[in-house]
């Protein structure tokens, strides 16, 4: 067995890419993003071409935009999860937080359209607090993130239904639901869903934050090798807490979209945490931290949803979707592991 396999000790050396120089800023960055997402982008294109082959109507703007709208919550959630995974952790509490978002919004507003702004503010504050608590438990109490967020999952799920009296009550006002289900009228392409605008904005912010700010570089350094990051003066605790806050806020935004799209239910967020992790893994981020790309994560989420659509078109029974998702997940993580081994 060779002793050159990357292990915790020299991980940061293996995984940190040199920062692109300022000279080739625009073209260089675009190329960098494209390079990071090349493998999964190829897979996505193959799947999309197959879908178009089976169902040419997919190219119609309304059909394609409906696909984007359906994928929007997962993309946003995956981008939030990416920040935590890049920092070296996991966030399993996001599915429960989505449920909390929808149930609290319905119960507090009780369908009152005037409550829109206060309810949104309340939801964001809840997200902020959940992320802050997750981050502080992980960094200050040194509880591994899987356990912390697993505990938070149980706490949130129990607390929201204890508070609501066992099942979701109230209703969502139309102006709350518009973000998930309404659309702008636009010339040429017809209707542009709000959700698509939201997801584009979130993706731009996430890309900027992760790849073009000091915070992003410090986050990548923290995940690549915490000890080395500390030595270069990074406040890793603060960076990690911030990552959990971003993940929780992404869950709130995804919850608002899902509430509009799917309405109020007790199961609205179920299983979303693992879907988000799957999308991040498909996007080629290194589990354990240090490497990841926002653009590739968006592509990963799109690939997952497109794959489900393709399997549907092929007439595969609904339950087998999960089997295929499992196989894809195993394939992606083994591919990443073996590639890393070769690189080392």
């Amino acid at each position: 067995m060779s002793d050159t396999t990357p292990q915790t000790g020299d991980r940061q050396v293996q995984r940190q890419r040199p920062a692109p120089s300022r000279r080739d800023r625009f073209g260089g960055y675009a190329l960098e993003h494209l390079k990071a997402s090349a493998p999964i982008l190829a897979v996505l294109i193959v799947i999309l071409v197959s879908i178009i082959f089976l169902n040419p109507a997919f190219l119609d703007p309304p059909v394609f935009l409906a696909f984007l709208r359906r994928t929007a919550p997962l993309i946003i959630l995956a981008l939030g999860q990416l920040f935590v995974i890049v920092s070296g952790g996991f966030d399993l509490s996001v599915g429960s937080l989505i449920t909390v978002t929808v149930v609290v919004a319905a119960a507090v507003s009780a369908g009152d359209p005037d409550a829109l702004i206060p309810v949104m503010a309340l939801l964001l504050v809840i997200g902020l607090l959940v992320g802050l608590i997750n981050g502080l438990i992980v960094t200050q109490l040194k509880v591994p993130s899987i356990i912390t967020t697993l505990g938070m999952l149980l706490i949130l799920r129990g607390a929201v239904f204890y508070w609501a009296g066992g099942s979701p009550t109230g209703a969502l006002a139309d102006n709350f639901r518009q973000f998930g289900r309404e659309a702008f009228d636009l010339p040429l392409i017809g209707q542009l869903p709000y959700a698509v605008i939201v997801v584009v904005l979130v993706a731009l912010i996430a890309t900027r934050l992760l790849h073009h700010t000091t915070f992003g570089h410090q986050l990548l350094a923290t995940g690549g090798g915490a000890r080395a990051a500390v030595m270069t003066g990074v406040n890793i605790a603060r960076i990690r807490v911030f990552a959990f806050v971003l993940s929780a806020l992404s869950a709130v935004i995804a919850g608002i979209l899902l509430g509009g799209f799917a309405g109020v239910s007790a199961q609205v967020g179920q299983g979303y945490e693992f879907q988000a992790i799957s999308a991040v893994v498909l996007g080629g981020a290194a589990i354990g931290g240090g490497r990841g790309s926002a653009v590739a994560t968006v592509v990963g989420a799109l690939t997952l949803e497109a794959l489900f659509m393709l399997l549907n078109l092929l007439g595969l029974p609904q339950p087998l979707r999960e089997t295929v998702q499992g196989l894809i997940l195993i394939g992606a993580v083994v591919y990443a592991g073996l590639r890393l081994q070769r690189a080392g």
Partner: protein
Amino acid sequence: MSILTEDRSDDPVRSLLTKFDLTDMQSGVWLVLLAVMVLGWILVGPDFVSGGNMTNMMVRAVPLGIVAMGQTLVILGGSLDLSVAYLISVVTVLSASVMDGDPNNIPLAIAVALAVGVGVGLVNGLLVTKGRANPLIVTLGTGLVMKGLLSSRFAAQTGSAPREFQILGYGRIGGWLPLSVLLLLAVFMIAWWMTRSTRFGYHLYSVGGSKEIARLSGVRDDRVIIGAHVWCSVTAAITGIFLVARLGAGSPWVGPEGVYDLESIAAVVVGGTALLGGRGGVPGTLAGVLLLAVLDNMFNALQVDGFLKSVLRGVIIIAAVASYALRSKRKDVDIA
């Protein structure tokens, strides 16, 4: 990073006998268990510690306890297994179908269950070691594969266990000692023996402590991890067999409904085993499983709301792990 974890002070019996170290995590969790029993006696009344209720609590802890004995070894080696919940379902469905109410088929059903366990464990272990895949993601993947296959083939309860087989779930020796508790104790003794008295066990601790150092000292780390995964899947298979005896049939949902994946990990870490591997052991896990069962029973007796119970459970899991982490002298900056 700590070097080889050949620290015998982790052994609870030894430390209880020699120095009774209150700060030792493994004996600490037994003391907490004792304290909770006393608390239950005060809050609920003398019925709480009656023989009947104690047996009841132990029987309730059996399925989670068995699979947690497997999860402990995987975690000690620095890996993780999220596929156990669906594997339990697969085993209940398969073995109940093979039995189909005929006592003559019992040996074959058990053989099939154990073979499936070994097979799934091998796949998990090989993917983690030879495939260099992250254990959390890859076992999530194998779990999803099984989930999809299960729900595409089985909608409801399948097969049936003959009356003779249900003795395993309900039988009592001498009218009081449940067979199921003996089954848990047997699995526990095997796991304890493996971790404490075999070369595999020593290697497991060293690989979990530091894979690099273990490898440099000549330990075949891949084999050790594969072995731990096979044992873990076998314990999941035994849990499945037990649940068939208990339910009288196979059910595709019994595994995920019991949340055996996350609950077993919770029981292991509440029992003082480090999630990063190398420290802890099965006696702590046994205490962790019993602690969760006793708390559950106490909350039920006090008529705590089911949702509030979930909140308390989350708080307890985090608090338990925080108390270990804060007392740990190992100053790790990179916590997963």
